[in-house]
């Protein structure tokens, strides 16, 4: 039989997914342990997550330095001995820091968990923040910042967030030479004592987990005294960026980094899924309109994308790209044209179907390992979303109509409501 290669094979739509549930245990001291036991490989990831990012700090940088200094010395081990203790087991550690949260993350072979746990507990309970190591970290942070400041992408994103939220707001703040140099030992120490040593945290364990591991966790992380819940400070977003354009001149740069966007909302908002689909059409995937126009048709860039970014207490929309300097204005014009098109012309059913199918498949494909499942469960547990939020993901995506897309584009994508930041030049 002659094969007709011009006809696509039949396919099935993904109609639903089922996010494996976390088993939750309460340790003796009231700390919650969530376990995702999945996988054939004998590996484990353990995370201790503290609600103690920039949002909670008294001095800019205190939360960053507090978490990074955990592995730089305890009452029993010095910095080199701590690295040695984890490295000896082949364990990788990561001191995680975001605007909202900080945490200790350890990846190890499951058989080494019994040796990893006492180390983790020691870092949380007995960190000493030694002065020599603090000065070293301060120096390394300053040098890294210097390198980052040579990167247009870093400059553009930092300025973009500063303009959106204001530099008084934790989501608008970033490291700079002054705040790194001025950060006091006391501020770091206080952040550590209040939020880490005596702080309430959440443990997430993912991978090949055994019953005995749960007991071990209770014995190591479940015995310490935990302080009371910490009040969450309130911040107001100062929004005076609309319609502005900010240029950071870099005369030697061959390319410009462009960031364009606005403050939006997070997963709790009723328009979240509609906006997710709208964003996907505009710049969320490789076949998006921005990618087609600006990369595939005009060859102005290696890549362009748009995002609906969600933080614990807010969210924002951002379009980002790097282009040859002389294409900067042309690119911004073309972005605006694509937005106008989305606001005025109803999207065709074929394109909308492709986008929705892609999003469904991408979502189903992003839940295959214990770590991916744990990352989704963390969003639900830490951001207080309904337990079935992700189980409805595909239904909600499939329910979005072409009218919804028009409405979203008109409500949330007006260029006059956005700021444009350019690092490089025009």
């Amino acid at each position, binding site marked *: 039989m002659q094969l007709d290669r*011009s006809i696509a094979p039949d*396919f099935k739509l993904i109609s639903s997914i089922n996010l494996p549930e976390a088993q939750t245990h309460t340790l003796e001291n009231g700390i919650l342990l969530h376990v995702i036991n999945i996988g054939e490989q004998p590996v484990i990831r353990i995370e201790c997550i503290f609600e103690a990012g920039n949002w909670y700090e008294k001095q800019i940088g205190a939360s960053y330095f507090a978490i990074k200094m955990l592995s730089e010395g305890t009452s029993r081990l010095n910095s080199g001995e701590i690295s040695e203790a984890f*490295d000896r087991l*082949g364990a990788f550690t990561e001191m995680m820091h975001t605007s909202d949260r900080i945490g200790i993350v350890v990846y190890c072979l499951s058989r080494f968990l019994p040796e990893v746990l006492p180390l983790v507990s020691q870092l949380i309970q007995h960190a000493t923040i030694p002065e020599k190591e603090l000065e070293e970290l301060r*120096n390394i942070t300053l040098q890294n910042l210097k*390198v980052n400041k040579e990167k247009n992408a870093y400059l553009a994103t930092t300025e973009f967030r500063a303009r959106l939220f204001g530099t008084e707001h934790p989501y608008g703040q970033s490291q700079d030479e002054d705040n790194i140099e001025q950060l006091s030992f006391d501020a770091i120490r206080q952040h550590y004592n209040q939020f880490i040593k005596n702080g309430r945290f959440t443990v997430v364990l993912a991978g090949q987990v055994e019953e005995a591991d749960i007991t071990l966790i209770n014995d190591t992380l479940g015995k310490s005294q935990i302080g009371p819940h910490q009040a969450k400070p309130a911040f107001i977003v100062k929004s005076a960026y609309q319609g502005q354009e900010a240029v950071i001149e870099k005369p030697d740069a061959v390319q410009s980094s462009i960031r364009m966007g606005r403050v939006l909302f997070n997963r709790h908002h009723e328009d979240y899924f509609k906006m997710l689909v709208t964003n996907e059409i505009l710049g969320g995937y490789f076949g998006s309109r921005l990618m087609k126009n600006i990369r595939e048709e005009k060859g102005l860039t290696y890549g362009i994308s748009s995002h609906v970014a969600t933080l614990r207490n807010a969210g924002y929309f951002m379009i980002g790209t790097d282009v040859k300097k002389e294409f900067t204005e042309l690119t911004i014009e073309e972005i605006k044209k694509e937005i106008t098109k989305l606001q005025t012309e109803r999207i065709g059913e074929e394109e909308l179907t492709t986008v929705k199918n892609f999003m469904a498949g991408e979502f189903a*494909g992003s839940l*295959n390992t214990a770590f991916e499942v744990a990352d989704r469960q963390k969003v639900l547990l830490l951001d207080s979303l309904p337990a079935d939020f992700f189980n409805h993901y595909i239904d909600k995506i499939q329910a979005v109509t072409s009218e919804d897309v028009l409405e979203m584009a008109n409500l949330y994508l007006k260029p006059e409501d956005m700021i444009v930041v350019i690092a490089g030049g025009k």
Partner: protein
Amino acid sequence: MGFCRPLNKPSGFGKNFVRSTIMIRYKQFTLENGLKVFVHEDFSTPMAAVNILYNVGSRDEDEERTGFAHLFEHLMFGGSQHIPNYDIPVQNVGGENNAFTSPDITNYYITLPADNVETAFWLESDRMLSLSFDPNVLEVQRKVVIEEFKQRYLNQPYGDMWLKLRPLAYKEHPYRWATIGKDIEHIERATMDDVKDFFFRFYRPNNAILVVAGAITFEEVQKLAEKWFGNIPAGQPYVRNIPKEPVQTEARYLETSAAVPLNSIIKVFHMPGRYEEGFYAADLLSDVLGRGKSSRLYQKLLKERAIFNSINASVTSSLDPGLLLIKGNLNPGISLEEADRAVNEVLQELIDTGATEEEVTKVKNQSEASLAFSEVELLNRAMNLAFAANAGNVDWANQDADIIRDLTVNDLHQAAKNILRPENSSTLFYRVETKEPALV
């Protein structure tokens, strides 16, 4: 019609010690046109990964036409003979795809719901049959690649490091140019005839490896492979004829400067290729030197003496003999010469006395853990099979853990003596370019 020759070879039996990495089970067959197919069944996921590796990389390029393997990777997404757009059908069935080019290979992959795996066969077989050779696609992708060159190699601090290092370390072997190309003019000059020649020379079934992994049976893959790839004609067998890099006999130095924030040193040493004898001894040696905060370079040159503010070591893992690389950023006030001497002292100590038993146990645990973590992802398992099969023996994908386990203190000491010799080194001093003095 093609004909399948299943081998149904189980792998990984007869090991009686506890091992922490799980064998990647597979079965294989070869189509009449020479396409080698490997199947890794895994029904714990609803997804499938389809990985197709073409045995062509930048080392196969003509010196006057560099950057071609990579440009080609871009063209492969510009439509094929019967399918005008590659990406939309993938997205439409909920799949994701991408590709990469290395000095050794060009690799394409799709992950998608296993129910829709036939879409991947349809797309991949049509672009193996023939591309559309649309002139407009060439024009646009040429521009995209030039922008990629700028974004990744010119517009980043230290972005041109490899462009400088490769020709310093390699004098004869084509690893002396980067995958993006030696000169961006080569991309600017590429013609449609060049494109067609390249395609029919390298993109043939007998020069490719197909791996299908995930929730799909071996029998189903056999049926689909036969249906979609069976009637693609084989090409002339490609016989690789690449000059061997002569043994280096004296230390090489090069200085460069750019508007970078910090002085930097990069040192490379020739070492065995990815599947050659001695690869893992060299790999673990680089870990002893510069993996993590307990490594020698970090402890001695960042912690004990504040010479660097970042320093690490790694290996390139290329198929032909590769490079062990040490890279560090200097603290202000330290001269490049002083930092170089300090690195050389650490290296000499390792040549003289080797690594300790504790260090070797540590880096073996680290490697074992990296391997186990890398195999958590279905797509990585598929790629590991494809890389090993392409290099000569698919079972190599399952032997890494044993090789690492069997390494001794003595193996690493030998590796140090062979590899870290000064006359085997190339050193790049990357100097901060001082701008015009500011007006006071």
